């Protein structure tokens, strides 16, 4: 690999706060952010709202878990109504406002153009529109939440046309949601509709960018794996989300106009709604996990300073997962009355979609083998991911086996399974990615010891929260229950204390980040010695990303970098500046 001149730290003005012309300082004032076309600023704005959504969804979860410490055999109407609203909003806010957008819209927006050596995405205005639509969709959910709160706080005196709060579950099953629910179902469904468009437009943008803005020399098989995973994710986003959009509009039409498509008394079919809904919502879970897998590939290579093992297999498995994901939705409907033939076909395809994920896990282990493993905060999240994703994926096996699923369906076993993959895996990858790219985004380092303590606390808390739920589920504990038979209490108590532990760890993460922004050490351009192109520019990057166009090589060949003790970062080896130590 030939030398290129990287902007060295000494090229930038030296003042302890990292001021110089970078994207954070280029243009001042609120309007320069709210109407920016800079993908990096858009990524940060998404970060703020997405983290806020996570905090809100998490607050609901802590409230739910606190309620569930006791069996509530004498459950009152007020408690039941509050619980049912909380579990619904926990799910809806987490799924639509946090898990689906988090990695693509936050990390993807920031890093994707940088990894392509590009100035921005293909359609910067569309990117801004995605963000604005996301905010508007979020406002609909805020309305739903506030209508419920106001109604409850005024003792039921204040009502809202169209309902208040939401208690249908994030899955909105008909006919409960269309004919019985007193929640503001229409507002919530329209909010999800808008959030879906944000997702579609981001996917469209990423596909166009990856096709058209790859630099000279970056063939498809020389792309970083994050880009492969974002590409596969984007395909799902643009193909599946429109189906959700139509389904949501049909739900609104059913609820407001009584058109009858899901109403059996008018010749419609409530189970049809489930087919439409899950046709999107199953691929949606791969929208959640594929970007996470891309992040893991980036961190595991950088922090073990080693080439990814099995690049082609890892890249192709992302595409395989994306394609297969469209054919398994019926496993959410094994007990719905769906035909046994359909059930059998969905069972087989569900087992098959597990295989590419298993291939990835083995390839990541191969990456660790004989690596130079730095047990940094990002790496701890990767190691946690490997264990938690394994449990999540493996517990999908009894759920895919159709007769065993009959016993486990709609129990806490399913809740535990999907939290292991959505939270234990996706959240861990998101947090790891935030820590990995934090220096690049903000030009600051963070306290790694605090980060590592928090990661361990979150790992322990997470397992304590969700592992007992597997056992509660196999014993029959149903989902969405505000009260339960006393024999299940032990599992709930363990789970709740796990939730408190996990929350403590997450609070430490937040404090860790705030402290870094306030007093973090200045970050070098390349703290990890990785070779993907975002590390070839300063931390934080300038407004248009690169002062000098980087040259493309193998994204995982890190041999050209040497450690520079003075800046505590890595620099390219044939720089004029002599390295003071050789790692």
């Amino acid at each position, binding site marked *: 690999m030939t030398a290129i001149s990287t902007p060295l730290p000494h090229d930038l003005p030296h003042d302890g706060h990292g001021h110089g012309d970078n994207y954070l300082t280029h243009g001042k004032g609120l309007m320069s952010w709210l109407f920016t076309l800079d993908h990096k600023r858009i990524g940060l704005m998404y970060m703020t709202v997405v983290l806020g959504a996570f905090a809100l969804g998490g607050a609901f979860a802590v409230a739910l878990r606190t309620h569930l410490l006791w069996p509530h055999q004498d459950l009152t109407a007020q408690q039941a109504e509050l619980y049912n609203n909380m579990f619904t909003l926990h799910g809806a806010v987490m799924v639509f406002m946090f898990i689906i957008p988090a990695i693509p819209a936050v990390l993807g927006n920031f890093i994707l153009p940088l990894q392509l050596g590009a100035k921005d995405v293909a359609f910067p205005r569309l990117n801004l529109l995605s963000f604005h639509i996301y905010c508007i969709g979020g406002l609909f959910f805020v309305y739903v939440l506030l209508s419920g709160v106001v109604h409850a706080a005024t003792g039921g005196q204040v009502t809202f046309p169209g309902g208040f709060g939401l208690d249908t579950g994030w899955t909105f099953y008909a006919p*409960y949601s269309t004919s019985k629910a007193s929640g503001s179902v229409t507002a919530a469904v329209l909010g999800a509709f808008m959030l879906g468009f944000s997702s579609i437009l981001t996917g469209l943008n990423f596909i166009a960018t990856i096709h058209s803005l790859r630099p000279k020399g970056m063939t498809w098989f020389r792309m970083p794996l994050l880009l492969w995973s974002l590409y596969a994710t984007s395909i799902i986003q643009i193909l599946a989300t429109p189906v959700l959009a139509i389904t949501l509009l049909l739900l609104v039409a059913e609820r407001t106009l009584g058109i009858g498509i899901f109403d059996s008394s008018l010749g419609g079919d409530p189970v049809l709604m489930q087919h439409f809904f899950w046709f999107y919502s199953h691929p949606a879970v791969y929208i959640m996990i594929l970007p996470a897998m891309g992040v893991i590939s980036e961190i595991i290579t950088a922090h073990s300073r080693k080439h990814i093992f099995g690049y082609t297999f890892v890249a192709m498995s992302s595409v395989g997962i994306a394609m297969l994901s469209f054919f398994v939705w019926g496993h959410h409907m094994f007990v719905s009355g769906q035909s*046994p033939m359909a059930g059998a076909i969905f069972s087989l395809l569900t087992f098959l979609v597990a295989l590419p994920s298993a291939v990835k896990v083995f390839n990541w282990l191969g990456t660790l083998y004989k690596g130079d493993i730095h047990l940094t905060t990002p790496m701890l999240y990767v190691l946690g991911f490997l264990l938690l994703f394994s449990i999540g994926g493996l517990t999908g096996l009894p759920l895919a086996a159709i007769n065993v699923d009959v016993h486990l369906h709609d129990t806490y076993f399913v809740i535990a399974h999907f939290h292991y993959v959505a939270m234990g895996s996706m959240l861990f990858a998101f947090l790891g990615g935030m820590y990995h790219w934090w220096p690049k985004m903000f030009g600051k380092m963070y306290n790694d010891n605090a980060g590592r303590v928090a990661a361990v606390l979150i790992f322990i808390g997470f397992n304590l929260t969700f592992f007992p739920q597997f056992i509660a589920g196999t014993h029959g504990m149903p989902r969405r229950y505000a009260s339960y038979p006393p024999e299940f209490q032990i599992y709930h108590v363990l789970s709740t204390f796990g939730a408190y532990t996990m929350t403590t760890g997450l609070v430490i993460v937040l404090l860790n980040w705030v402290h870094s922004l306030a007093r973090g050490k200045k970050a070098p351009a390349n703290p990890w010695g990785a070779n993907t192109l975002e590390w070839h520019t300063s931390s934080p990057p300038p407004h248009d990303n690169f002062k000098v166009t980087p040259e493309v090589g193998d994204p995982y060949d890190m041999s050209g970098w040497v450690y520079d003790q003075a800046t505590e970062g890595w620099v390219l080896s044939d720089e004029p500046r002599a390295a003071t130590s050789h790692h």
Partner: protein
Amino acid sequence: MYCMHSLLAEATNATFWLPKGVSSVASDVDWLFYFTYWVTIFFFVLILGLVVVFALKYRHRPGHEPCAPGPSHNNALEVIWTVIPTILVFAMFYWGVRGYMDMTIAPPDAMEIQVTGKMWTWEFTYPNGHTDSELHIPVGMPVRFVLNSEDVIHSFAIPAFRLRKDVVPRRYNKLWVQATEEGTYPVYCDQYCGISHSRMISEVKVEPMSSYRAWLVKASNWETTMTPLEAGEHFYKTKGCMACHSVDGTRIIGPSFKDVFGDTVEMNDGSKVLADENYVHESIREPSAKVVKGFQPVMPPFTKESLPDKDINAIIWYLKSKSSHFKGDMGAGKKLAAPVEKK
């Protein structure tokens, strides 16, 4: 060993992971569950072991020279770790479908019980036409449930049988079971159906055929076997009233029945109503007609099929017995009718 038709199978024992399994399909379900469990344990221990060993052995530490980097691909390994999981999943798929066929295909001579789910109680209609809130089935005989909902989607779930099926309005789903051991086992509603979803719990009593028949005769003819007061208390407990109305003054979801009958009650529109027999009857048939002040209009109506007028009469007896406002003579000791065998 796995066997396809386990109609003669014994009950499975309760373990750390699973409750006692008392249906003919339980042993197959439990077997495959444990197969997936051990596959999970094997791969998890393998992955955990490699993660721990690699993280320790190859960790970066000062003064430690990293060894020459390992290979970046190995096609033989890729084939091995794709083929072995593929074989395993095909096996699990196959056993799962065979077990599911057993669950789906009921023996032709199965006795039928209609199950009606409604917000928020279960009703069971037996072959003699009697509808009851209690579920009793004979042990060792195939029983086929025909499931239907009166309102929204519910789910009829019996963990001890390892069985579950959604209950959909205007659609008949079917579930069959052959119970292998006597006992009483919980029945849950597993599909969110509104405010009292978690109260929609019942139980199934599995008993010898002779006692099942005796129970059915007695239940079908409560006038011959119970006094109206006893029957009223029985219906209070089994028809779903108890989930929302207490008799000791505690407020649950609906007003307590204590001291209601004969009292003057305030409605949410400010009007005051005498809680007499007409009020009780209307409150059961059309609960939204008059809503007590401070409560929500969430009570579902009960039709003549689920609660015939004579059952309401019995409930009225019970309400009178719980109210200090009723001063009349209960005459509680007399049965209404002479014993008549109704098949």
